[in-house]
């Protein structure tokens, strides 16, 4: 009797569990069948009437029934919870193809970008970055660089003078002289000097009265023209691309001897000749050479070092 009753209860309960569609309903089932006042407890209460042999059997069966119901309720509860979460998430769906919230971000001026790139390249090779004033004395801008007032090479520079002795610097080279005057002649010198320079040019597509230059100076024992060539080759490949070649041509600057102009193979046509390189395959980007040892500001450098040193004046970044 009791056995049948228990199995009946189990059947009934499992049907209700299966039918439950909400957590609340499920909970009602739990309370109804497994609660202290539920029918299973009631059945167990009548166990006293049973024989000693039957009692444990019914007891075990009652536990199995409770367990079976509890397991199903738990399973059902998980299923209902998952369904509830899914239903909620379904309502939260967004259109992921809509654009994101923009973050304000700025950027460097292209000129600064190039300058920083070059600075970093040379810092990696043991250089420091030297800077100087943009308004210069005639002495540092010209005389210290072997360009006395009557020098014909001054024809090449049309300058913005403020007084007879003060002008907007026409190149970054005065920084070399200023740096060397401070140098105590101890150890090698490796500097690059970036900066703004000014010349009396009418502004057009390829000219500007204000532009950016960068130049370098190395003074050390056993430095040669081949080191200048090698250094510039590294520079050209880093700044203009690994496929670039450089070409040195003899030239003239009043403070270097020998002097060179440096061309880089044209990036546009790869050297075949195009309108950018005026059909030559080469683009002139800078000038350099070996600093004349007679310059006054090299006075602090010991003679043995002076007799073999190098400088290069890069001149390739019009603004």
């Amino acid at each position: 009797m009791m056995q049948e009753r228990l199995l009946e209860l189990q059947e009934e309960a499992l049907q209700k569990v299966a039918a439950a569609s909400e957590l609340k309903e499920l909970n009602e089932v739990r309370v109804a069948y497994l609660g202290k006042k539920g029918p299973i407890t009631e059945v167990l209460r009548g166990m006293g009437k049973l024989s000693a042999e039957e009692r444990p059997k019914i007891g075990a069966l009652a536990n199995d029934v409770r367990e079976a119901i509890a397991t199903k309720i738990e399973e059902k509860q998980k299923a209902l919870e998952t369904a509830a979460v899914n239903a909620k998430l379904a309502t939260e769906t967004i259109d992921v193809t809509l654009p994101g919230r923009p973050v304000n971000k700025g950027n460097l001026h292209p000129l600064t970008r190039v300058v920083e790139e070059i600075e970093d390249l040379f810092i990696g090779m043991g250089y420091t970055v030297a800077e100087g004033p943009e308004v210069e004395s005639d002495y540092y801008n010209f005389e210290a660089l072997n360009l006395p007032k009557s020098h014909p090479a001054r024809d090449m520079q049309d300058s913005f003078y403020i007084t007879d002795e003060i002008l907007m610097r026409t190149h970054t080279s005065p920084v070399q002289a200023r740096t060397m005057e401070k140098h105590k002649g101890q150890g090698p010198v490796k500097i690059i000097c970036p900066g703004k320079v000014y010349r009396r040019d009418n502004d057009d597509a390829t000219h500007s009265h204000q532009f950016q230059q960068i130049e370098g100076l190395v003074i050390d024992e056993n430095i040669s023209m081949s080191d200048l060539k090698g250094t510039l080759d590294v520079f050209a490949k880093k700044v203009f691309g690994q496929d670039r070649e450089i070409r040195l041509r003899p030239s003239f600057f009043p403070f270097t001897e020998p002097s060179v102009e440096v061309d880089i193979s044209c990036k546009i046509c790869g050297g075949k000749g195009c309108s950018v390189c005026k059909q030559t395959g080469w683009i002139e980007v800078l000038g350099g050479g070996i600093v004349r040892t007679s310059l006054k500001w090299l006075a602090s450098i010991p003679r043995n070092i002076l007799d073999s040193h190098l400088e290069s004046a890069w001149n390739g970044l019009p603004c």
Partner: protein
Amino acid sequence: MFVSYKWLQDYVDLSGINATELADKITKSGIEVERVEKKSEGLKGVVIGHVLEREQHPNADKLNKCQVDIGAENPVQIICGAPNVDKGQKVAVATVGAVLPGNFKIKKAKLRGEESHGMICSLQELGFESKLVSKDYATGIFVFPNDVEVGRDALEELGLSDEVLELGLTPNRSDALSMLGVAYEVGAILGREVKWPVVEKEEAAEKATDYISVKVEAKEDNPIYMAKIIKDVKIGPSPLWMQTRLMSAGIRPHNNVVDITNYILLEYGQPLHAFDYDRFGSKEIVIRRAKDAEKIVTLDEAERTLTPDHLVITNGSEPVAIAGVMGGADSEVKNDTTNIILESAYFAGTVVRKASKDHGLRSEASARFEKGVDPARVREAGERAAQLIAQYAGGTVLQGAAEVDGLTMEPAVISITLEKINTLLGTSMTVSVVESIFKRLQFGVELDNETFTISVPTRRGDITIEADLVEEAARLYGYDNIPATLPIGSATPGQLTDYQIKRRKARRTLEGAGLYQAVTYSLTSQEKASQFALEARESIRLAMPMSEERSQLRLSIVPQLLEVVKYNNARQIDSLALYEIGSVFFKRDEQELPEEKEHIAGAITGLWESHLWQGEKKPVDFFVAKGVIEALFDTLGLADQISYRQAEINDMHPGRTAEVLLNGEVIGFIGQVHPTVQKDLDIKETYIFELSLKALAEAEVAPIAYQTIPRYPSTTRDIALVVDQATKAGDIQDIIEEAGGKLLKEVSIFDLYEGDRMEEGKKSIAYSLKYFDPERTLTDEDITKAHDKVLEAVKEKAGAELRG
């Protein structure tokens, strides 16, 4: 310098090398060939014609009907409008089918009813620049000498089949300002001989010194002066070949004597001058500095006032030429001139330069004197010119010359070792390679073991020191042959200075905050130079500005940034955030360099946030801009040292501007551009700042201290304070921070209310105060004690009342 490929062959054998190849070789070894011009490019079908008949065109006053023999079976009829065309002339005829410059094709035509089979050409029509055409033919057709053969290629006769190399000479290579100089260079490059012109003296028994004497008073300025006399010349046109050579070099032909002096100038690089002997005014040449206010009328018929800075040639009493620059009109060689004084001299560069600059007269001659002519060629150039004058203008060269020669010019002698050359260049040239280079240059070479002793000819005045010889060796050895290596020496630390690091940090921070870097001009107008200036100091003006727009050095960056805003606003770009780091310039004493300071400036306008599909838009305001500079100060570790003070600054919004102080010193400002200025500039509401980067970068920064993550809880108490409208939130915050003691860790404002529910003239500010002790959990009592002090302080010092 223009170099005719054909003319150059008079001095160097160029067989096997065309003009383009030659140009490439010259460029690679040191003189840049800027252009190779083929003069006849795009021209064809122009022949020499003989005008057999000329008559008036029956229907047109200004046209001529000509019958012209062009070497074909029958003469052709050509209608010609040139005023100077005439029977018997040899002329250039563009035949039917010919092509002239500008792809102008000649076709058979009918002009006012008369057939025309071609065109008789002027030199301009054949592509010559007007300034090169002899004045005789300036307005008409060119007439050839009678001995040219009919039917021949006129382009060939005019030297147009030649190619011209345009050399871009650096100032040191004035030796290449002559055909012979270029010949030496080409000879050295190719390893070929240089052939000099042969000067055959044919002189009369009469002596030049019987006709003229020379006295040099200014010996420094004029160490060599030679005057030759040529009698009985006949002025006329120079030979066609000479004229075409002059034109190819950019010089206009005049007459035989003048052309010859110019020809020698081009050939030897030695400027010459011819005076009319009969109009010279005396038999004495005196060279001296001009007297003050002395006057001369030069060849161009301008009266010029001289000073003692100028060197003049005189006839003993009056100037007849400005030495090396221009001759006088009185003694000019004219068509009736018969006797000539030919001057060949060495004038110092400085004195010629001064005169040419003062009088605005730059000529082929002055340019060469300025750069220094070869003293060794002065005499020979004069002799050769005299010989050519005799040959092409008739006349007799008198014996010798009246001369002064006070210049002893020894060739420079420089010694250098092979090792030195190789060390400096990083090469491994052998003795024989280097020796052959110097020999090809025609330098004197003495070799002792591995030491070269080089005698440098006077034509190469640019070579004075060892380094110059190294350069000669390098350029003729070829820079392509120098290896590429990297320096091997003791290592040096490559690094930025603290200042440079901070500048980069500033850039990164501002970019991260959304600002784009601008680079604007340092030169600006007077008005803009000092607008928004942080320090009211005088701006600096250029002595000779190119325009008023760019006449002053800026004292502030902001005006230029506002220009950028304006430019963008005018192009429908309304939202813009910019910064610039650059120098501004403050005037000091006239003799001193200005004080240069690096500033950092910004301009922000338009929308700061715009998220269109969500409908959110946030325009830029004062606090957006302030947030940006706060981030900057924070990055630089200076947040604690910065404060703000309401300020009134010209051209700024009076209620929305603050000075920025670093430890109490004003180092910048921030705020809104004054609405009237915005309106004048036609820009939208714009917030700007300008700070001294120098001050920021040089300020001392406290070391960064590590803080643990708190182990004990903190407690937050919020208060809302009612204060007067004018009371500054920052001041209250200072009071709170001071009163809160060490337990008060953070104060932040979380609400500001100024609405209707407030009493007139009052506002409410809500602060959130966070109390914390790293060592323990604070008790309610601890906090209340501290908090009460805060409340008391704000009440007392700011008149604040707690809002209920």
